[in-house]
């Protein structure tokens, strides 16, 4: 589904990502892990067009989407979430999702502005779809709350709902569990698992190792912008290279 070849990004002299190869198949749920500053979010930015790669390419469903505009890539079916700035704070929960249901083609500017019958029907569809998404993620009871007043955990979940509204084929989750309490973590993990079982392909960055291991079928480990390991969670857990990256090259080796 998604193929990344030789993906490289240099910031000045610093190689944030270098020569990354990876591929995700339809129906996969893959984890992208690594110590802080390993280049995980940079990989997301490169895939979704928020950054232009220095070299390498990104191919999605056999089409080269390298360095295309982010909104263009989103319409192709890759939608990502953000660690920060993941909601529209002045809108209600429902408005957040309604706005993100924007992708439906065929509603032109004048149609929308003039409230033609066609656009009204579409608006109605969008409203129903938004309510269904809120129900799915469990925010339906808070539909009319202004989102800046939400609890942190609910904001994070709303971030996922916004991404879902754009109807992704491939969903990129950037640390979906960060800052959540234990209850919210298990709830969100169940949500991600449900999305995957409903047929969505998912790539996620996660610092919560236990969660990443239990959610993902396959895991890619980055360190200093390079892929140091790839495999099932069991293989990753025992990979000496990974252990060294996380714990440092300890003196115990001597």
């Amino acid at each position, binding site marked *: 589904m998604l193929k990344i070849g030789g993906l490289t990004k240099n910031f000045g002299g610093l190689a944030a990502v270098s020569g990354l190869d990876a591929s995700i198949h339809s129906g996969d749920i893959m984890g992208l892990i690594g110590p802080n500053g390993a280049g995980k979010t940079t990989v997301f930015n490169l895939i979704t067009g928020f950054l232009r790669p220095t070299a390498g390419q990104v191919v999605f469903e056999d089409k080269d989407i390298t360095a295309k505009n982010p909104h263009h890539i989103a319409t192709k079916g890759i939608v*990502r979430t953000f660690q920060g700035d993941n909601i529209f704070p002045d809108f209600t929960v429902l408005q957040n999702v309604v*706005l993100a249901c924007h992708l439906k083609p065929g509603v032109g500017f004048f149609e929308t*502005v003039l409230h033609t019958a066609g656009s009204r029907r579409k608006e109605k569809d969008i409203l129903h779809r938004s309510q269904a998404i809120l129900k799915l993620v469990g925010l339906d009871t808070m539909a009319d709350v202004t989102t800046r007043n939400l609890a942190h955990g609910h904001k994070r979940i709303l971030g996922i709902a916004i991404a879902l509204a754009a109807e992704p084929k491939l969903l990129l989750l950037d640390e979906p569990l960060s800052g959540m309490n234990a209850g919210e973590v298990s709830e969100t993990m169940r949500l991600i698992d449900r999305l995957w079982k409903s047929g969505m392909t998912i790539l996620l960055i996660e610092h919560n190792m236990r969660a990443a291991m239990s959610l993902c079928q396959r895991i890619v480990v980055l360190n200093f912008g390079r892929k140091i390991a790839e495999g099932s969670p069991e293989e990753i857990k025992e990979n000496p290279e990974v252990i060294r990256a996380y714990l440092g090259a300890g003196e115990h080796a001597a």
Partner: protein
Amino acid sequence: MISLLSYAILIVCLFFLPFILHGPYYIHTFILTMMNIVLASSLRLINLSGQMSLAHGGMMTIGAYTSTLLVMKLGLSSWVSLPLSGLFAALIAGLVGFPFVRLKGIYFSIVTIFFSEMVVLTAQQWQSLTGGSTGIFNISRPNPIVIPGILNITFSSKADFYYLMLVLMLISLFILYIVENSRVGLTLRGIQQADSLAESVGINTTGFKVLAFSIGSFFAGLTGGFYPHYISAINPDSFGFLFTIYILIYMTVGGDKRFIGPILGAFVLTLLPEVLRPLKAFVPFFFAAVLMAVIFLMPEGLVGLPGRLKVITARFVKERGERA
């Protein structure tokens, strides 16, 4: 329903206003007020997308010269040249908008100032076309509207221009209101709050920002196109940087959070200097003071005043109660 009725009454009152006002000077002031209302409201539409344009004066200059030259050099009817002046400003905004909106925040504002100054300089230097710094005089009035037996508007009195501007204002506000309350408006406000997020769900944020810039500039161009036919003269300094800043002050003082804000701001701040006429030399000083007072005391602008008074009275009443 009630609010719809009150709007209808207000509009009817506006139609009868010229009969009540004594003398052309007051009518003139009201014409300027209505121009400023359109300008401040259209500036707010651009602002909705999170970018502060300071090119409104430049766009007005473009509109003013477009309409003037189309009438004077090509002999077009001013009824054709007036909408064209808006469209031409919108087109220019659309073209320069794409590079401009790549800049964010204050950098966008700065580049729009440069653009505006460039328009003024072009008007000054292109003497064969624009008449240079002295500008163009004796610009013809709009062609009369004559419906035999019913209507005969010859644009020989200020009241006729009052009606023209009133109609332009009502149409402009109507369009701006519909755009803001449509999905387009929702999208613009979303882009203002988090543009990367909007982009990530497939919204062409560049396109929408340019669209807002272009629609807002349309109304600046239209108002600019009206002005020379009314005053019958135009020169490059008519709408300079200070003029744009005034529009910005109308919007900010009125309050840019709500549609009514810039209308209120333009109304109060255009009429107030007339009341304080003996102090006319101090107007810029006065505006600066009002602006600072509003920013510090009423961050939501004049539209936030009723709510703020309510809070203050409630607090006052509560303190009295506690003391008793």
